């Protein structure tokens, strides 16, 4: 019985899509409620899995493996470990929040919007749960189509450009990944140049085979090349400099809820994939880019550093509120890369925690930007001022989110970044020290924004601006609570995945 829960969670939103599709077009309230219900079910299941998950074991749990395409040894294989259960919870949590955030501001084609959103949710949940490389890829790509339409149809003025740019960038990355997947599959049964047994797409099986003496998957040159193939696919998604230019466009044009999903979950798909595939499957390949010798050995940490500093400085220069948050996302994902590059327990734990925290905090930030935009219909930071008097509750929540994001101790953003930096400092001291510039700049742009938007004289245009309403508060409160709780007691999250991370550290420390 328990085995089916995971699959149920993945496919309930898909069922929801069909149900929403069958509802009549004009019953908008009903459509929204049904969509909400079908995102709440995965949340309940995710919370159950999170609680029921056996933290003391690093084994994959709740796994189901049934043959799908026999001829090519493809299985429907899903299961969770500490890392995926955390990200599943994040995804499932953001689902209903995004439906609520879309309650009033979707003006046309509400039915199609909700149907696509539910399809997107299935893609994301399936991606984090799949343990078969082929299935993993199918779910990875399944998020592309709904995202293209959600940005392209319901987005801002330059939505067409943003949507196709997002699509082309991601597709480019994923075709390289496809080559790597096929290459891995074709070598999966070759030991000492002789084919033995069957080929496989099974991720745990591949990881295990790669460690066998003389196995073709273990060859370090081969690992380096497939590592690069996967890396580019994921780097576009994270996004890692120089593949990041689609992100600000996509974020600025996307409707609020979609920005939330984009920053909260889709970016995590990149780093999750990196951990699940690049690190666990190709430790020898990883070694080329993180062993600290010469330029190549520093390259991954260097990319993390560039993301942090470049993202932060770009954010500093923005006057569009949403673009500022988008660039700050690039900066904060840099910490994840830096932490992973360290390959030690602190770094990886920090990176994984940062993934979750960034998902929560950036979701809050985008929701808050959306609240303001729905009222003022623009996002120009310099066009506001003195809102603190007019909207005290909104100001309070925004301040919390800003503080969490800039890494104030006591709030969740701090722990992840600090752990990542601890880990990285042991391996790349100089780059880590330089990376802290990003934190300083981060504080600067958030505080400066706070000053420009909420302090000073109230812009007379906005004297009648209504306060944040109950529904909007409802979307923000769970996230706000999480940032505070995880800031004080990060072990609830870290305990979940620390065993899996220890496992990973054993694999990557060669």
């Amino acid at each position: 019985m328990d085995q089916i829960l995971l699959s149920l969670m993945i496919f309930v939103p898909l069922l929801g899509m069909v149900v929403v599709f069958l509802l009549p077009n004009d019953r908008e309230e009903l459509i929204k409620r049904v969509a909400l219900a079908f995102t709440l079910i995965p949340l309940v299941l995710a919370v159950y899995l999170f609680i029921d998950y056996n933290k003391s074991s690093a084994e994959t749990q709740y796994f189901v493996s049934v043959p799908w395409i026999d001829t090519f040894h493809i299985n429907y294989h899903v299961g969770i470990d500490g890392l995926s259960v955390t990200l599943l919870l994040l995804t499932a949590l953001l689902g209903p929040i995004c439906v609520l955030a879309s309650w009033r501001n979707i003006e046309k084609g509400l039915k199609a919007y909700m149907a696509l959103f539910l399809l997107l949710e299935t893609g994301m949940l399936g991606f984090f749960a799949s343990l078969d490389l082929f299935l993993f890829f199918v779910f990875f790509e399944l998020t592309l189509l709904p995202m293209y339409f959600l940005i392209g149809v319901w987005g801002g003025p330059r939505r067409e450009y943003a949507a196709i740019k997002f699509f082309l960038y991601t597709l480019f990355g994923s075709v390289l990944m496809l080559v790597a997947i096929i290459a891995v599959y074709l070598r999966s049964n070759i030991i000492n140049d002789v084919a033995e047994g069957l080929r496989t797409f099974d991720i745990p099986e591949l990881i295990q085979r790669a460690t066998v003496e003389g196995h073709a998957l273990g060859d370090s040159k081969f690992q380096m090349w497939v590592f690069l193939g996967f890396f580019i696919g994921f780097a576009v998604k994270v996004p890692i400099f120089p593949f990041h230019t689609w992100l600000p466009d996509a974020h600025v044009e996307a409707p609020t809820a979609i920005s939330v999903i984009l920053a909260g979950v889709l970016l995590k798909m990149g780093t999750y994939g990196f951990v699940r595939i690049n690190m666990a499957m190709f430790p020898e390949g990883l070694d080329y880019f993180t062993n600290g010798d010469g330029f190549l050995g520093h390259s991954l940490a260097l990319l993390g550093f560039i993301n942090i500093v470049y993202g932060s400085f770009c954010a500093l220069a923005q006057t569009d509120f949403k673009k500022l948050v988008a660039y700050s996302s690039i900066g904060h994902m840099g910490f994840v890369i830096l932490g992973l590059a360290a390959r030690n327990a602190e770094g990886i734990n920090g990176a994984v925690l940062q993934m979750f925290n960034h998902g929560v905090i950036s979701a809050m930030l985008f929701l808050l930007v959306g609240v303001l935009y729905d009222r003022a219909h623009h996002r120009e930071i310099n066009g506001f001022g003195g809102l603190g008097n007019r909207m005290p509750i909104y100001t309070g929540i925004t301040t919390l989110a800003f503080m969490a994001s800039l890494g104030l101790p006591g709030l969740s953003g701090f722990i992840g970044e600090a752990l990542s930096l601890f880990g990285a400092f042991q391996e790349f001291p100089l780059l880590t020290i330089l990376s802290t510039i990003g934190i300083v700049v981060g504080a600067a742009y958030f505080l400066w924004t706070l000053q420009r938007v909420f302090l000073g004289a109230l812009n007379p245009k906005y004297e009648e601006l209504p306060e944040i309403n109950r529904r909007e508060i409802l979307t923000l409160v769970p996230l706000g609570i999480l940032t505070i709780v995880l800031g004080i007691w990060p072990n609830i999250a870290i305990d979940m995945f620390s065993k899996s991370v220890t496992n990973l550290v054993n694999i990557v420390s060669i």
Partner: protein
Amino acid sequence: MEPLKNIESLAYIIPEIVLVVFAVAVIIFDLFVKDNESDWVAYLSLIGIGCSLIAIFITNSLVDINKPISLFLGMIRLDGFAIFFKILLLLATAATILFSLRSEELDVRLKGEYHTLLLAVTFGMFLMASSTNLLMIFISLETVSLTSYILAGFLTHSPRSSEAAFKYITYGAVASGTMLFGLSLLFGMAGTGDITQISSQIATVLESGDVSALGVLIAITFILAGIGYKIASVPFHMWSPDVYEGAPIPITAFLSVASKAAGFALFLRFFYTGFDTPEIIQSIDWRLLLAIVSALTMTVGNLAALPQRNVKRLLAYSSIAHGGYLLMGAALLTPEGLGAIIFYLIVYLFMNLGAFYVVVLIANESGSEMIEGYRGLSSRAPYVAGAMAIFLFSLTGIPPFAGFFGKWLLFNAVISEDLYWLAFIGLLNSVVSLYYYARIIKAMYLESAEDTDIFSFSKSTFALLGVFVVPTILIGFLNIFYSLSKKITLP
């Protein structure tokens, strides 16, 4: 295995005989049918196709797929490969007839001739899929070409259609002349027309030094001109955009699917049976030549599709590109390559015909084949727009649609031969192709039309659309198609 004699062979070609009988029956029947009831001619030809399909299944039960039968003293062969292609071709022809029923371009007075020609061309394609003799290869190719020329020019009132037919003939004449020359050279060198024996004969003469490898290469290149022209591979593709644009839409769909599939059947049989022995590959590496042709074909097709505004012409270039993808599999000369082509052709049949069907529907309603005519289609005809989006995404190769699984099999086959450069070119081409397919999707979903009338379609229209949509979604998930593609082999 001893080839059967002429009279004994007749029992095995009942599907072909049925087609010919119905082709004649249709034209006689047409004499007695009034213009306003001319749809009955189409129904009669559909019955003919149905009978032929049943006949295939009956003869199929006579044959063991693993033991091919050689007919007419070795002229043609009946095996699993031929049976697969015959079924595929019949489905494509049936779809073409159904499209023609709905198309408003065609002149009702000529329906009898039209359907006779369609059945005749299908008969020719049957032969293409089963020929095992150089002479038979040429004859079957010509049967198909000559009937296709007339079909392409069937819009008697349209100068573009006449231009298409004229270009098709001119190009076709040169190509088949070149091919005939190549065939005669090959016949001279091998001393036999039977392609099952050619490889050993060529290997012998190459070894004895009577013939140089260059000579064989020249002969094969000339033959490739003829086959390449049928499958529209670079550099023999120039005719196809103009012909596809000028021909009636159902014929364009037919040429892009059936004609291409038959061309590939011929191509595969010729190379897989005749030229895949190690001795020959050692002296002349076809695979590299074919791989380069494949890379050029898909790149030229995709790049030329980018600026097109006419959807029909865009799909013409896209089908050149798809020919290039299929050629990747053909270039490998491996069973994996063959299996991938078989699978891809099944998928391609549904997704490409589906896309052309939407073009027919939109051309009927808005009178336009341009991308502008697709603006706001998502609100004017939501189901048709949705179906078109599925076909286009599948053509791009995006999961979960069948096109992705087809491409994946092809790339799997390519990479298993370590041709990474070819796989990269193929995949980059997929990314490029997204750009022009997405232009149609953009017009349908992201732009709005000045004219917002709702298009109304009949129930049968949606049913036929469903026939293409459902397989485009499902084929990739069903194991049966993968095992089918693995089962079909060539000796």
